[in-house]
């Protein structure tokens, strides 16, 4: 950015040719940002995608991508997708209900302030500390496990384990529900009181109102939020790693992590392909989210 500029730079109409020259100079202003993004985000991504289409010798191949649809890798993807689906749906439902309650005008004001602040914290309180909190609670010697045992309920005897699929899902909900609350609150705020009054004046019951007015308006935001939750859980690595050691439940992210820290797949390029597959799935989710958000924005005008 030049420090020398005429006082009214950019605000007086100027000849087209001069303006074009100035615009290309103005473009220089975002060069540092583009360079930074190029080095730390684009270059690693492009190199990774390229490497996933190469064999260890560097020759072009589809073999890695084909391997994603077989055996262990396919299984890891499937487990990742399943856990993301389960936690997005359950977290989304509970989060939406809690959000409905907190934005309701009969709800105490403190409820909303408390829930929103807590959600901001809980959405950040993920990874290793979250896994440890659940181990202290529901692990083999966890406090709640012990209490339930005293009460005659043997959790681990009845087949539950925190370190399996459902334990992991239960732990993921701790950041999924708060994320839902944070993401969906603006949509609930956007439901106008007049719509409800109009429906009531026309004789609609609350159930009727929700079925024909409320839910159809919320639907794009809801679907968008669910996609975001799905992507969030699909990308999670730290929580799964801390809880399962990357072994007892094999997910796509933990498989990549294992591959990067040891050499389990014996083919680094297979690990890169696995990562490339994750980009594809998350991109699809985020793109669909973006489209739905645009659809939802109609009602916010």
């Amino acid at each position: 950015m030049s420090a020398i500029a005429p006082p009214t730079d950019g605000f007086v109409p100027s000849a087209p040719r001069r303006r074009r020259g100035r615009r290309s100079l103005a473009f220089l202003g975002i060069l540092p940002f583009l360079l930074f993004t190029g080095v730390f985000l684009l270059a690693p991504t492009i190199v990774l995608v390229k490497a996933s289409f190469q064999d260890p010798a560097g020759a072009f191949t589809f073999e890695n991508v084909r391997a994603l649809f077989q055996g262990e890798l396919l299984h890891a993807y499937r487990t990742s997708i399943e856990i993301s689906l389960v936690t997005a749906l359950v977290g989304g439902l509970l989060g939406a209900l809690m959000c409905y309650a907190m934005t309701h005008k009969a709800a105490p004001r403190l409820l909303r302030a408390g829930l929103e602040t807590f959600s901001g914290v809980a959405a950040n309180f993920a990874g290793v500390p979250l896994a440890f909190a659940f181990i202290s609670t529901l692990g083999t010697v966890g406090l709640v496990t012990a209490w339930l045992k005293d009460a005659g309920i043997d959790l681990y005897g009845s087949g539950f384990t925190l370190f399996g699929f459902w334990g992991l899902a239960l732990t993921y909900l701790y950041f999924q529900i708060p994320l839902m609350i944070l993401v969906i609150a603006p949509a609930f705020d956007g439901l106008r009181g007049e719509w409800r009054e109009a429906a009531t004046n026309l004789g609609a019951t609350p159930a009727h109102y929700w079925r024909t007015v409320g839910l159809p308006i919320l639907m794009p935001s809801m679907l968008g939020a669910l996609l975001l939750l799905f992507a969030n859980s699909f990308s999670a690595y730290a929580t799964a790693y801390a809880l399962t050691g990357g072994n007892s439940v094999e997910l796509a992210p933990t498989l990549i992590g294992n591959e990067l820290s040891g050499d389990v797949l014996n083919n680094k390029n297979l690990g890169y392909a696995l990562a490339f597959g994750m980009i594809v799935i998350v991109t699809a989710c985020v793109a669909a989210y973006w489209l739905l958000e645009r659809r939802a924005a109609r009602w916010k005008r």
Partner: protein
Amino acid sequence: MRSRLGPVSWIALFLGISYFLIPLVATAIFSTETSRNGHDLSAYTAVLGDEGFRSSLSFSFKLAVATIVVSTVLMVPTAYWVHLKLPALRPLMDFTTILPLVVPPIVLVAGFGPTFGIDGPPILGGQGSWFYGEGIPGNVPPLLVGAYTVLAFPYVYRSLDSGLRAIDLKTLTEASQSLGAGWVTTLIRVIVPNLRPAILNGAFLTLAIVLGEFTIASILQYTPFSVYISSVGQSSGTQQSSLTVIAFLLTWGIMLALLRFTRGPGGGRRGAPTQGAR
């Protein structure tokens, strides 16, 4: 018209809030347990006295400060410039800064290997170089700071974007320049003070992200606070829970500070920080 909460809402609230609170309470109780069925704070004194605790926490804070400085210096002028001079590029900025959400940290760090490591062309020196923190004050690795700055893009840019929308950039810039100020003076003495809530908001979110980040640091074999917690957890249950409580209190502190210091014009809507989840 009914204006009371239905039973379904109450059940959802009860379930949700108990689910939120039970693990916290259980962890807090667990952290004070002793081998003789008593309670004391020995796990905390053991943890606080540990050299690894102090060095990892200080490493995390150094990383956070470096990341906040880099991302502020990079993003504030960029966002200002785009809003003032290149409004046509705003969609491109929106798109670029949302990309880190599409490339999860585990994927990003997988790409680091062949890009910056021994595997690939050593553009920036490879392992053991200044890029990995060798010889840098505080051993803060530029690679990690760069990665964290990228992770913070969505939150920092969104915060600045809504802050910039809320002020009249053109008038402010015009006024400042008609008084003889250059671009740098305008930016530092006019724009930055007006954007303070948005900048602080971005800084606190960055702090929360950096303190919680585990994936990239652990794969690259650094030991910030989150990685230290993970290593202690494998040896002692009560120390593990006391560290969890400390981590939770730290996160609370940051989020409360965020709410406290970022109210005001230009703060805009606060973005939801979620990067720690990854």
